[in-house]
């Protein structure tokens, strides 16, 4: 039975939870398919994550391989196809806890970068898992900066082979998933040398393990890179190559080829390939970044409605911790952000769908905007959501620190997203470069992409708000965000210009402005997110209850952002000190309003208990009973203490008493 403290929260919901779930899924049919997939996966014991928190790295890895193998069978059985509507929900339902994710990247890179013959040769056996692929890009010494990679591939015209080498320790491939123990093949990125000339980084298919007995191939040193903060189930690996020879045909050659005589040919445009890499950043946002924040909010908010601590009023029973303003201030902005990011993710997908169509028509004009958007939003969302999950973790006090709460593993997993697919600071600087360019163009009256046309609207002025209610008017706060975003872009652009004119070299001037540039890029993404939230709420007009609560969340997201970055908004006096006090007051009022719907708002995310895998966050709210039951399952309680006979007994009995 449901804990009465949670049941009462649900009775007073101001909107239809099911209706909101449908909005989040993008339609009732999607909700139905998603639930069907989740149901099938969770009913199957092979996919159970029940004992996950007690498993060692070795056990986690083995389970992930078992699940990956089983998943193939299951998909076949259910008739789920990679291009079917179920596919996007499968990974979510298994909570990412499967092996061979890099195998998919391996296949995609062959499909995109390989010639028709290469696709015909490699994709069928890969599809049947007759070989398992990985994708070896990063090295010990280099990550995001790809031009710096040190692995070499030297073409030998006499044998028509490439000779691959790891010339020094920092050139060792490091981190690629599935490579430590599983993969038989991998796409290796290496500096191509022909007749002593370097042509830059190119991809090569290299076999690393025997297809017969899985032993390492000659010249290959490979293994697991050791324990990490999370991803225990993935065998991230290292790879060292010593005079490994591969046939000329193993260089992926859709765009570049080395002919038998060593002639290097470049053909076609790599821009599509470039576009593919950019889309990866956007495609990971939903499952790897936004979903973990939604889960963390669900756990922390349900737990806060169940946990009672201290008294708000003397003589009453202890209060739910969710009724404390300080607890609301920790959790509710995270909840609002989860919604804001869900909607901005939809916006990005639309932007990319449109871009994809244009690119198929060989129109590459939108590439810079797409690249800047994917970089900036990946950085902003991953940073924000990572911080948000950690706030949720700490808001659950001591019990949040237990692995059984589910929060530590959500946190250690999401925080990797700040680094992979491009380190966040570097990505923000790429967005900033685009903004500075567009600002210059806009100032000169030239056309700029749609998402940055606002940069042309520089108009000094003051925020017109007169009282705290004015700040619940989206026009008022969207304008404030826009103003601040323009100010940061324009002032940084101006400073850059000043430095260059005063004789500072261009690259040095850039380095001196990077702290501000990062700020400008964040402000841009924050503005777009707020603006998009407002527009999304407007479109919900036929769903009155839902529109109302979404409007509150939108207001909260916007005002929290101003409250937390007060200096940026006060800086040029656009917002006055007195107005900042009004914003604070409105913001704090909203906490109390949203508090009433907090539990229904997380219920709408529609996570099953199994997918949350949390003793604190289950739907029925029977927190303490579950925590106690789960703890008893811990191996530490089922084995005799390994230390007792060896150390504790001698300690307790004789040794010390003689001292």
């Amino acid at each position: 039975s449901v804990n009465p403290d949670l049941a009462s929260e649900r009775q007073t919901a101001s909107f239809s939870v099911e209706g909101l779930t449908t909005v989040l899924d993008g339609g009732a049919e999607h909700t139905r398919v998603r639930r069907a997939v989740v149901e099938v996966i969770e009913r199957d014991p092979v996919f159970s994550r029940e004992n996950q928190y007690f498993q060692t790295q070795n056990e986690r890895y083995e389970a992930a391989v078992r699940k990956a193998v089983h998943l193939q069978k299951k998909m076949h059985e259910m008739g789920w196809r990679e291009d079917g509507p179920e596919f996007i929900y499968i990974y979510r339902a298994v909570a990412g806890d499967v092996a061979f994710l890099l195998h998919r990247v391996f296949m995609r890179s062959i499909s995109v970068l390989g010639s028709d013959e290469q696709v015909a040769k490699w994709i069928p056996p890969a599809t049947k898992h007759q070989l398992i692929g990985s994708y070896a890009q990063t090295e010990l010494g280099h990550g995001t900066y790809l031009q710096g990679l040190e692995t070499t591939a030297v073409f030998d015209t006499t044998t028509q082979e490439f000779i691959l080498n790891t010339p020094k320790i920092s050139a060792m491939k490091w981190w690629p998933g599935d490579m430590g123990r599983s993969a038989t093949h991998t796409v290796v990125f290496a500096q191509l040398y022909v007749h002593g000339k370097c042509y830059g980084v190119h991809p090569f298919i290299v076999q690393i393990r025997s297809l017969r007995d899985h032993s390492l191939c000659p010249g290959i040193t490979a293994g697991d890179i050791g324990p990490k903060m999370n991803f225990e189930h993935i065998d991230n690996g290292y790879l060292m190559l010593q005079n490994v020879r591969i046939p000329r045909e193993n260089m992926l050659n859709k765009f570049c080829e080395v002919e038998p005589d060593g002639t290097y040919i470049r053909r076609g445009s790599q821009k599509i390939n470039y576009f593919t890499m950019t889309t990866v950043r956007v495609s990971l946002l939903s499952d790897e970044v936004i979903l973990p924040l939604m889960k963390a909010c669900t756990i922390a908010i349900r737990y806060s409605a169940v946990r009672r601590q201290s008294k708000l009023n003397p003589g009453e029973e202890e209060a739910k911790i969710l009724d404390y303003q300080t607890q609301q201030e920790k959790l509710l902005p995270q909840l609002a952000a989860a919604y804001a990011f869900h909607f901005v993710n939809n916006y990005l997908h639309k932007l990319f769908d449109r871009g994809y169509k244009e690119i198929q028509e060989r129109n590459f004009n939108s590439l810079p905007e797409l690249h800047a958007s994917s970089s900036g939003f990946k950085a902003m969302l991953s940073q924000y959501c990572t911080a948000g999950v950690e706030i949720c973790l700490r808001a659950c006090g001591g019990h949040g620190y237990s692995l059984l709460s589910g929060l530590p593993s959500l946190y250690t997993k999401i925080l990797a997203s700040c680094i992979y697919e491009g380190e966040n600071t570097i990505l923000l600087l790429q967005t900033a470069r685009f903004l500075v360019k567009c600002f210059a163009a806009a100032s000169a009256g030239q056309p700029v992409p749609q998402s940055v046309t606002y940069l042309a609207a520089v108009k000094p002025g003051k925020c017109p708000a007169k009282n705290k209610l004015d700040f619940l008017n989206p026009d008022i706060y969207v304008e404030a965000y826009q103003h601040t975003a323009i100010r940061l872009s324009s002032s940084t652009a101006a400073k850059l210009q000043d430095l260059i004119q005063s004789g500072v070299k261009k690259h040095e001037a850039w380095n001196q402005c990077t702290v501000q540039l990062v700020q400008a890029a964040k402000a841009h993404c924050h503005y777009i997110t707020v603006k998009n939230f407002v527009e999304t709420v407007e479109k919900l007009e036929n769903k009155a209850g839902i529109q109302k609560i979404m409007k509150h969340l939108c207001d909260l997201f916007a005002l929290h952002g101003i409250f937390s970055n007060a200096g940026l908004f006060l800086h040029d006096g656009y917002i006055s000190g007195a107005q900042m006090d009004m914003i604070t007051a409105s913001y704090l009022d909203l906490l109390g309003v949203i508090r009433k719907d907090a539990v229904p708002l997380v219920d709408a995310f529609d996570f099953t208990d199994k997918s949350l895998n949390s003793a604190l966050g289950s739907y029925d709210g029977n927190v303490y009973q579950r925590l106690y039951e789960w703890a008893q399952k811990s191996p530490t309680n089922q084995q005799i203490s390994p230390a007792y006979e060896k150390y504790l007994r001698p300690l307790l009995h004789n040794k010390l008493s003689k001292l």
Partner: protein
Amino acid sequence: RRLTMMNADLRRERAAATFQPELLTHILDGGAERTRRRKEIEALVINDPDFQHEDLNFLSRSQRYEQAIRKSSLMVMKLREYGIADPEEIYWFKSFVHRGRPEPLDLHLGMFLPTLLTQATPEQQDRFFMPAWNLEIIGTYAQTEMGHGTHLRGLETTATYDPATQEFILNSPTVTSIKWWPGGLGKTSNHAIVLAQLYTQGQCKGLHAFIVPIRQLGTHEPLPGITVGDIGPKFGYDEMDNGYLKMDNFRIPRENMLMKYAQVEPDGTYVKPVSDKLTYGTMVFIRSLIVGDSARSLSRACTIAIRYSAVRHQSELKPGEPEPQILDYQTQQYKLFPLLATAYAFHFVGAYIKDTYRRISGDINAGDLSELPELHALTAGLKAFTSWTANAGIEECRMACGGHGYSRCSGIPDIYVTFTPSCTYEGENTVMMLQTARFLIKSYNQVIAGQRVSGMVSYLNDLSRQRIQPQHVAARTVSVRINDPTSLVEAYKARAARLVEAAAKNLQAELNHRKSKEDAWNRTSVDLVRASEVHCHYVIVKLFTAKLSEISNAAVRAVVTELCLLYALYGISKNAGDFMQAGILTDAQITQVNQRVKELLAIIRPNAVALVDSFDFHDTHLGSVLGRYDGNVYENMFEWAKKSPLNKTEVHESFHKHLKPMQAKL
């Protein structure tokens, strides 16, 4: 240290430093003699083969617990063998043995024994102290329950006195009342000091402490009526058996209640304690330790991130030139140097609290408790402020190490998971901030009522003086000199005054609207937390600045002054809204501050490595491949990875179990 083997980048960094790191180490340790002694104790541990073991990253939880127990028992014996008895020296020895990690005897040594000393009667000391000292009794301190942590009055465990048998009957009446989290409770301890609601003669007398045997001496089996175990895996603290304890009609003799202060007489008559303020002393002491721990944990993370950033080369700054050290990027400096300055600030704050506590605790024993409320209030807030900041800072450092920071070989994940619970234990941080706020509001109200307040809150006295002239604090003109730390202290002071006043006024406004005091307090609590934060921030800037004049060596003073300026200016830059809104700084001045912060980054850059060397962490203690003193990062990462459990066999068993059958089928 083998200079010949040192990475060339680090060698260059060290040669270019403008000061001698050892001199700064002496300041951090509290004198050259303390440094010498610390290193002497460190050498005792590091050169002792008994304390060597495999890299803990490759051990299972159960193996880590076993190693910790092994080392703890040796540690206790060796401490006595070496005659190390000074609390600080014991602390050093312990943290070298356990490399900064918790251990199963922590609660026995840190809580059980001291509680016996302070709260047991002489008769009880006779019965329990020597067996506990000799570890025949291993005890823990069982306070928190599943349903209650920081709010102690809500604890539900009961101890009901039965005059017929002269026993207390202990019960865990609900699931939520099960004792949960105490360290060493799960598997190690055979006794616990249990906090329970005392019932006698049908009345509840509030929380009291009882010595409860939980496991049979000899067999170590749980006693009848006792259910005890480990609470399962956690974020960190793998070596600690945090436990649960459930008691069902478990009887203990009347003499097992700690009765130095409160007492229950044989007939059940309850005798009240003289003063309950005394127990505050221990809390203040432990919270002061957390401030020091914040400093040390952040220092370790900074050491790793800054050394690694000096070794790692990436991308290009100038076209055509070799890849630069990532420490040369402004964004990297902006991430790390303010944290480095923060680590120094917290070291000095920790030392200040320790000294003040020593001074005041002398007075406590002499019966003068007048300074206790302020110290209690101050340590609560500083505990929260420093642990929150360090918590976030450690993560910043890890993130600044890119992908490799995420590997356990970087050592930062471990620092983080070990440190982060200090935001919760010994008083949840938000609750701590609100305790400080209560003191601030009380002081503010005293000032309004015409009284003068003293100590760190004395700036509130100025508020009343300004009120005589009808002028808002915000309108006050402060001429801030951004290169003068003393002037910056004034700016922070003005900010604290404004936000404490704003919180007090908002509280008053709520009171005017509503009846209940508690409701008004709750509706103002976000403001109140901010007031506490800015008060603590002011105290830290003030203490850091005060430290400068104590540094005699000019070169060291110069570099520490730069750090102090960076700390203060970065804080202004990050909280520019507060300073502008209060009219303390204009937006033009904020622009200058932002600019000055970036100049300071460049000024500190040449000394960055020397500044982390001064923390003087031994490689064994640092536990990081990325942060090694010699900077030979990459080759050692490879060596480390080869030891991973997944690499024990060339072909993993799952190949035969899963992969091969699948390939055959498809």
